[in-house]
């Protein structure tokens, strides 16, 4: 035993007491942090209380999915909300990891994020199994003495949907407000999201939510695709505008003929978020075009008929007249009679004219105004152009005969015309009866005039005329076929 060094003994005792006091204080919970010397011989402070446990309890109470990974990507901790978000149980999350619930592309992005998150805060957006959008954020974290990565998962589906719907709403409203024609807006999947009021003329049911081709049935001549509606929408969504294609919509309540254009819809960015289809109603234009075609055909037909009639009148008049003067008078009189009927037919767009109108037009020029020498009785009717032209020629011949030889050649003669309309009968009849003129004898020679009178109305079996020569005055009964009588 060497000699005791009292100072050394005191120092050792002091150190022992200090060590015992430290252990006692730690054991009795009087300290909550320790100073630890690292391998690099540097002091570091670690707290005993306020460590991960309170924070873990706090994280479990959050709606946010949260997890911690070590530097090698091993999961240290994950809260229950994270499992819920990914559709995994707590055990599945710990055993299989979060990437097991993701498609390969999303899993790769999350792994890349974990690698970057060890040094700096970073985040990505992914879509999880049930179509929800999730924002994954990672940032550096220290867990005790370990370097780690804190990861949070936030469900941003509703935020994204709301943003998307607000964007499309705003754009569509602006477009619809400024459009008179039918406008349909489709989303990127080709489903109709908006349709303005004019679309009701093309489809009776609301097209919202349907695909374009299931809402509107289109046929387009010369279009190769089997489903032209879908093809037009697909082209526009693909970025190629479609302009001015004529299409028929056979099921449409009103507008069956359409001019269709489609263009990509870009909202805010260059990304195409759907397409806009505009449809102009061509029904009115088509009707007008058809009417015009009909009129041109009709005009052609009438001109040919008239020329043939004029030619026939010229030939026949030339045959029956002996002098050039006689031909000129008779021919121009007949052409004027034809022109007079044309005039009144033109005024009514060649639809129908009154018999009395034709009568006055043809006979009127031979009677002095104010004299009551033409007496008309019986119910008047409207007749079609074919009958009107023939009747006009017949009346012209009767009038010129009356002026030359009959009742209108003497100052007291009168012409009475009586209309008879028996609905049972196959014709409407007019009786021309001259009176108080010179005595009449049957002519011994019949000219072209008589042929015109008796034959002009014979274009139908129900039509025709009989000419008689009683001594008190010429009498003529004319029959207008029922088929050419329009009504009263």
């Amino acid at each position, binding site marked *: 035993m060497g000699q005791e060094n009292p100072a050394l003994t005191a120092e050792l005792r002091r150190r022992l007491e200090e060590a015992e006091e*430290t252990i006692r204080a730690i054991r009795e919970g009087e300290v909550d*942090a320790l100073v630890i010397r690292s391998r690099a011989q540097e002091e570091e402070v670690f*707290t005993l209380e306020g460590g991960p446990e309170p924070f873990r309890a706090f994280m479990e109470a959050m709606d946010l999915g949260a997890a911690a990974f070590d530097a090698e990507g091993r999961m240290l901790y994950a809260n229950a909300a994270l499992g819920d978000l990914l559709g995994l149980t707590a055990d599945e999350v710990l055993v299989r990891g979060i990437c097991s619930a993701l498609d390969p592309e999303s899993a790769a992005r999350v792994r890349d994020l974990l690698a970057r998150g060890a040094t700096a805060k970073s985040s990505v957006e992914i879509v999880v199994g049930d179509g929800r959008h999730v924002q994954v954020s990672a940032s550096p974290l220290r867990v005790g003495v370990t370097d780690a990565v804190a990861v949070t998962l936030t469900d941003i589906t509703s935020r994204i949907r709301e943003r998307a719907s607000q964007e499309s709403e705003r754009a569509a409203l602006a477009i619809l407000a400024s459009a008179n024609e039918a406008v349909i807006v489709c989303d990127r999947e080709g489903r109709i999201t908006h349709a303005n009021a004019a679309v009701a003329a093309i489809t009776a049911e609301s097209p919202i939510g349907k695909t374009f081709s299931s809402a509107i049935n289109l046929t387009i001549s010369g279009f190769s695709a089997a489903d032209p509606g879908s093809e037009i929408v697909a082209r526009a969504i693909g970025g190629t505008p479609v302009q001015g294609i004529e299409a028929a919509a056979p099921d449409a309540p009103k507008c069956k003929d359409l001019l269709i254009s489609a263009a990509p819809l870009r909202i805010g960015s260059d990304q195409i978020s759907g397409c806009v289809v505009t449809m102009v109603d061509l029904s009115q234009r088509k009707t007008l075009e058809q009417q015009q075609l009909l009129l041109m055909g009709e005009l052609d037909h009438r001109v040919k008929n008239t020329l043939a009639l004029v030619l026939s009148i010229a030939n026949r008049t030339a045959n029956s007249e002996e002098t050039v003067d006689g031909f000129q008078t008779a021919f121009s009189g007949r052409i004027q009679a034809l022109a007079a009927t044309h005039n009144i037919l033109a005024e009514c767009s060649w639809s129908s004219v009154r018999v009395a109108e034709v009568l006055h037009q043809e006979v009127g020029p031979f009677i002095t105004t104010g004299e009551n020498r033409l007496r008309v009785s019986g119910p008047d009717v409207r007749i079609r152009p074919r009958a009107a032209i023939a009747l006009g020629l017949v009346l012209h011949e009767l009038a010129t005969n009356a002026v030359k030889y009959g009742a209108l050649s003497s100052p007291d003669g009168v012409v009475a015309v009586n209309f008879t309309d028996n609905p049972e009968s196959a014709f409407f009849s007019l009786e021309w009866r001259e009176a108080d003129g010179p005595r009449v004898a049957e002519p011994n020679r019949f000219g072209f005039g008589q042929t015109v009178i008796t034959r002009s109305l014979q274009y139908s079996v129900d039509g025709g005329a009989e000419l008689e020569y009683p001594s008190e005055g010429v009498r003529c009964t004319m029959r207008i076929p029922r088929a050419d009588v329009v009504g009263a």
Partner: protein
Amino acid sequence: MVENATPTTPTEPTKLVLYIAGQTPKSISAIENLERICAEHLPGRYRIEVVDLRKSPQLAREHNIIAIPTLVRELPTPIRKIIGDLSDSEKVLVHLSVGD
């Protein structure tokens, strides 16, 4: 007079260093307790330095601090350490030898 002499001059203030680690509950409690004890028992005769080892961990070396909070009586010598949150006033006063 000699037998009544004390190892320190009565007028020399007591110099105390309190080592804490940021805002841990025991650190906060230790600061409050020390200020109360000194104000009650050493009015006007003390000087306190608070060292936050979370900010400057290397300062732990000077007094070889292991557990936090720790109070060191630097003056009067010899140096004495009190470990804990100083909630036991009697124990603190005994260790500081105040009232010897």
